[in-house]
């Protein structure tokens, strides 16, 4: 066997060992309560690109996608049932047109790749759902997102909700409009309730997040799920999104476990 093959074998062995260690760590972590739903505000892709002198406009976002695949794998292995990813906000459309186009093209590329994986059975039973004002997307991207939702509809593994063209303020207004139209159609009552509005929210398909993790060191929610996070633990890490790793996730979950008694008490009171 030559040196290259030996290095390849060693690398496989090392990766295998790391996988087993990771699974052992998760086994220990799962002794305590695991968040039912984790939301990620994926901030820091552009700063990552700047930090590493990456020239391409989508370089940071490509690095960010790699992070997405790792995080989803970890969440699946831990046993988290729902994950929400804040991929592209309503306000992000106000960025430079070239950058917006770049991000949309990258999203299309990755969605088409994921469709292929889903069809060939390599998606680990993930169910992917896109929420937000999808009419703001170009036709091809919208169709691809729809297709990915269709091919993963029957999957019963980790549910991944991807927020695109999303903001809480838009979601609330949209939910009010939809609930008004629905109420007109019902004809029974002319008064809206909280439940009417919540049923029409984009995020009605998932429970409220137990844990929100924001990367990039910023302390704000940036118009993301402010309605749904009244009982959520808000965790910020200075790591940029492409830098988010296993230990950041483990630390956030340990923090959640420490605060679980208080969060449960809060839920009962409300």
């Amino acid at each position, binding site marked *: 066997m030559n040196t290259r093959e030996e290095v390849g074998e060693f690398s496989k062995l090392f990766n295998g060992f790391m996988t087993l260690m990771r699974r*052992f760590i998760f086994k220990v972590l799962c002794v305590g309560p695991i968040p039912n739903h984790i939301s990620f505000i994926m901030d820091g892709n552009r700063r990552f690109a700047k930090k590493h002198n990456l020239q391409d406009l989508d370089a940071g976002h490509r690095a960010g996608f790699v992070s997405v695949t790792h995080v989803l794998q970890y969440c699946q292995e831990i046993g988290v049932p729902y994950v929400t990813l804040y991929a592209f906000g309503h306000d992000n459309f106000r960025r430079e047109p070239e950058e917006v186009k770049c991000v949309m093209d990258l999203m299309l590329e990755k969605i088409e790749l994921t469709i292929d994986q889903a069809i060939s059975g390599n998606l680990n039973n993930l169910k992917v759902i896109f929420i937000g004002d999808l009419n703001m997307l170009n036709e091809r991207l919208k169709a691809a997102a729809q297709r990915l939702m269709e091919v993963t509809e029957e999957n019963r593994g980790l549910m991944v909700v991807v927020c695109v063209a999303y903001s*809480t303020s838009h979601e609330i207004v949209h939910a009010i409009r939809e609930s008004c139209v629905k*109420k007109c159609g019902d004809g029974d009552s002319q008064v*809206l309730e909280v439940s009417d509005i919540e049923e029409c929210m984009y995020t009605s398909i998932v429970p409220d997040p137990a844990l929100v993790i924001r990367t990039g060191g910023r302390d704000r929610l940036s118009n993301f799920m402010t309605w749904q996070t*009244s009982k959520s633990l808000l965790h910020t890490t200075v790591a940029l999104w492409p830098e988010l790793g296993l230990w950041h996730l483990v630390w956030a979950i340990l923090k959640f476990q420490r605060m679980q008694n208080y969060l449960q008490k809060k839920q009962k009171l409300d």
Partner: protein
Amino acid sequence: MDFNDPMLALSSWIGQVSFLIGDFGLGLLWRFIHIVVTLCHIVSGIFEAVESYAISLGLIQKYSSIDIEKLKCLAVVVDIEAARDVSKVVELLQWLTTIGVKQVGLFDSQGLLKKSKDMILEMVPRSVLLQETGEKDTSGIALEFISSSDNKEAVVKAANILFQKYLKSRHPGKDEGENVFTETHLNEALRVVGESVHVPDLLLVYGPVRSHLGFPAWRLRYTEIVHMGSLKYMRYGSLLKAIHKFTGVRQNYGV
């Protein structure tokens, strides 16, 4: 070298170790990790306390001057247990007055601070209710009292106003109605039902966890949220540090 043999052996070994350790062993390991995490938090807490006292004594130069003009609207979220101790809330407001903060929204989910509104206004010098301030009134501190009823319930009340407008605009024979479902319309409807739509620049959370605890969602979009720990053990230096950090923040609002 066949890759599979050592991996299978390792996997089998870990499986056997896990079996031997069993649930009890894993539980012990989990508790040990949490003890280590708690110790880390205690050590970090000690460092923060020391830094806070140094800031209070003016030993750290950069906190001696704060550009308070950047902080137009501050909100404070108080945990229910802490909200029962009005004296600590009053002390916090007195500190904020000293720092020069002009507008503070006080939130607790159950509305306990709302019920103690008169007492708080009496005990905090030069404080007025926000609704009663004139536009050019710059002396003292304007207070707003907020609870969970100003969150989802308020949005529903505003939504019902929009619903009525929508129903009228659908009446046959009327010209095509305006689109009443915009953020501007919702803002207006919230004002009609007596809600403030001011978006706080900074939200300080006094409680065991960093959570906004149900602060009005419509107002929380780009607000910086900082966890300050327990109100019972609040420190002036930590407050100064949080406000100073905020004044250095650069918002891009998604752009």
